[in-house]
């Protein structure tokens, strides 16, 4: 037995083995793709058997057998074209044209059996090689569009077409150059063997090869999974897991539906829109979730009537679904989509379940991280509240100390020296500390109302310019001359008590933070439907770092000496509450040079209730 024969026998053996396997598969699962694959190998095997039988003299060489042999050979690229269509999509006109051409060739071949015209092999070769060229590029394009195992399968199919083309070219050459056929025909056999193996790997890879081809993507997904729970939000985590699952299986898309217990639906984020699926609607996805087992559908129109249109609109025909479950907690489902059923194999169900389990671990970790963050936030709120209470208590104790001690001292004095004249300085101190205590208590109450959004009650039409003048008249002094700039009345529907309080607070601050004296200027005007009020001073100003935190509860400026400027740090917090609860805003604007401006804007008439500004 020479090398030529060895290659030939080996090639026959490989084709027979593949033929046996794909035929069995087609019988077990008669999907279009499985049948087409089986037909392809049936044709190849019959060609091999016929030529072997004729070579061995078992069957006499007859023109009819020869015609059958060449008809089968001509059918091969047509079957491959159908496989392209099974895996992605081949143009309809090409399928029809190739079918018609094949039929014509077969008719001519049989009609002229035994006396075939000399010109016939030429168009036959053009047909074969042309179609194979198209098939090679079609599978190669498909390989570039797909990922993971599917990409590798499509590449193998493209190589199969390439080797088959080479085989036909070599056969054509050997027909044309008889003297070289001794060298060319073993090479043609070798190309045929390679193409057979490539097609086998591409169209019907054994489970072992399939798993090996899935491994790189799966490995990369699993190794990155530990980082996923730390992604900024759940949507990013889901997207990363969907990408990883699709690539690992070799499908173009995957989607995770999270179980919403309150609404009783699975929520999917499809592209930009959200889709809610009632698991009891009969869709296969819902069944997989309810039964808690992985399911496979090669035809969603059949298995998910009702919801199939969504998938079909996205070019989906086959699904793998695996429940995502952590212990007893049903978190959702992982759905892997494919445009064509043969992209998946049954073994992929186990892979989908593995990926869904991984998703469960990631989602549970995320839930734990979120819970820890919530606990920290609650602790922070509790701590702030405690700080607030202890600061408030401290501030209240200071005037209270004077009140308690001073009244007890007056009592002692009155008992020991009943005839002594009234101690006016002590009484004045009592009055002023009592007022201080009242201010603090009212401030605390207002801060609580501000927090609860209950600062504004009765509204009526008031003139901001008039309010500004009223406050100015009360606060004006030689050290702090106060001036109001307003072109006319600026009317709005506001709570008059709160507007006066707001204006007074701002003017009081302007005076307080101009310890060396200086003018305070108020401006009131109307602009674009908003009423504006600014209060400007030439005092100590606001450090840039404080501008943003100025209106927070208990915040006081870096440059504010705690004892020199009495107050609890609640004034501006209350001012912000008053402005915002009127639908307006307040901000601080440092003045150049020196001093600060506080700017309040409130919605004017016809603008009430507009909360979009600020």
């Amino acid at each position, binding site marked *: 037995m020479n090398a030529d024969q060895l290659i030939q026998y080996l090639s026959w053996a490989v084709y027979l083995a593949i033929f046996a396997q794909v035929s069995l598969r087609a019988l077990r699962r008669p999907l279009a793709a499985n049948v087409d694959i089986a037909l392809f190998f049936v044709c190849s095997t019959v060609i091999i058997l016929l030529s072997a039988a004729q070579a061995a003299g078992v069957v006499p060489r007859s023109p009819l057998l020869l015609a059958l042999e060449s008809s089968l050979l001509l059918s091969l690229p047509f079957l491959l074209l159908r496989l392209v269509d099974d895996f992605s999509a081949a143009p309809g006109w090409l399928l029809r044209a190739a079918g018609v051409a094949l039929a014509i060739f077969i008719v001519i071949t049989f009609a002229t059996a035994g006396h075939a015209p000399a010109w016939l092999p030429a168009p036959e070769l053009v047909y074969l090689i042309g179609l194979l060229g198209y098939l090679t590029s079609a599978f190669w394009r498909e390989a570039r569009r797909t990922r993971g195992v599917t990409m590798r399968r499509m590449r193998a199919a493209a190589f199969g077409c390439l080797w088959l083309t080479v085989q036909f070219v070599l056969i054509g050459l050997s027909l044309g150059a008889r003297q070289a056929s001794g060298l060319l025909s073993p090479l043609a056999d070798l190309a045929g063997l390679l193409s057979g193996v490539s097609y086998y790997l591409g169209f019907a890879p054994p489970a072992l090869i399939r798993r090996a081809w899935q491994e790189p993507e799966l490995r990369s997904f699993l190794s990155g999974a530990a980082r996923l729970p730390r992604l900024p939000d759940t949507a990013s985590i889901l997207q990363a897991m969907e990408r990883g699952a699709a690539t690992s299986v070799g499908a173009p898309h995957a989607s995770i539906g999270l179980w919403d217990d309150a609404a009783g639906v699975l929520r999917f984020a499809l592209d930009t829109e959200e889709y809610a699926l009632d698991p009891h609607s009969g869709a296969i996805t819902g069944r997989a979730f309810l039964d808690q087992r992985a399911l496979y559908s090669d035809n969603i129109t059949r298995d998910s009537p009702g919801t199939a249109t969504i998938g079909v609109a996205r070019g989906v025909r086959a699904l793998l679904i695996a429940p995502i479950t952590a212990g007893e907690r049903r978190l959702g489902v992982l759905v892997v989509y494919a445009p064509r059923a043969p992209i998946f194999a049954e073994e992929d169900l186990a892979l989908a379940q593995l990926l869904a389990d991984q998703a469960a671990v990631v989602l549970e970790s995320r839930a734990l991280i979120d819970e820890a963050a919530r606990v920290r936030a609650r602790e922070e709120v509790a701590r702030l509240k405690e700080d607030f209470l*202890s600061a408030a*208590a*401290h501030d209240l*104790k*200071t*005037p*209270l*100390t*004077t*009140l*308690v*001690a*001073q009244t*007890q*001292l007056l009592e*002692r*004095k009155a008992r020991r020296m009943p005839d002594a004249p009234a101690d006016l*300085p*002590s009484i004045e*101190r009592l009055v*002023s*500390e009592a007022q201080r205590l009242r201010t603090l208590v009212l401030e605390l109450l207002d801060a609580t109302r501000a927090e609860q959004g209950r600062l504004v009650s009765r509204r009526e039409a008031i003139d901001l310019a008039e309010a500004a003048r009223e406050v100015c008249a009360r606060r004006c002094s030689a050290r702090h001359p106060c001036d109001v700039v307003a072109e006319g009345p600026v009317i709005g529907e506001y709570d008059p008590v709160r507007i006066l309080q707001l204006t007074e607070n701002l003017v009081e601050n302007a005076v307080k933070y101009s310890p060396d004296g200086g003018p305070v200027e108020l401006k009131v005007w109307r602009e674009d439907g908003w009423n504006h009020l600014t209060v400007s001073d030439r005092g100590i100003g606001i450090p840039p770092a404080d501008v943003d935190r100025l209106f927070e509860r208990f915040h006081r400026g870096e440059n504010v*000496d*705690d*004892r*020199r400027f009495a107050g609890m740090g609640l004034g501006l917090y209350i001012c912000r509450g008053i402005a915002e609860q009127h639908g307006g805003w307040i901000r601080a604007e440092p003045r150049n040079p020196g001093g600060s401006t506080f700017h309040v804007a409130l919605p004017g008439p016809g603008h009430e209730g507009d909360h979009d500004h600020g």
Partner: protein
Amino acid sequence: MADAPILVIDDDPAILSTVTDILEFEGYQVEQARNGVEGLAHVAGALPRLVLLDMRMPVLDGWGFAGALRARGIHLPILVMTAAQDARRWAQEIGADGYIAKPFDVPALLLAVEGLVG
């Protein structure tokens, strides 16, 4: 020593005046200071027999004042008076001889003062 004044250090003017009045009404001599730095200036002259010390003050607080005294090797009885809840711990921290929490009753203040100057 019996004639030496009691030094009251507190940044709140109303409390400072009231405590001064209370002590003077009982016959004590009183010196006033509004923060630790002013307090140290008083100590630099004649030593007071007792210091009534507020803790949270601008410029130099109670801890700073007590530390400065220690650094100068001056030992004086100190009565901490503070509105903070940690009055007891703060008094221990600076090695004070006693503490009284604001707001206090006059008899309690006088009792504490007598206990330290007696």
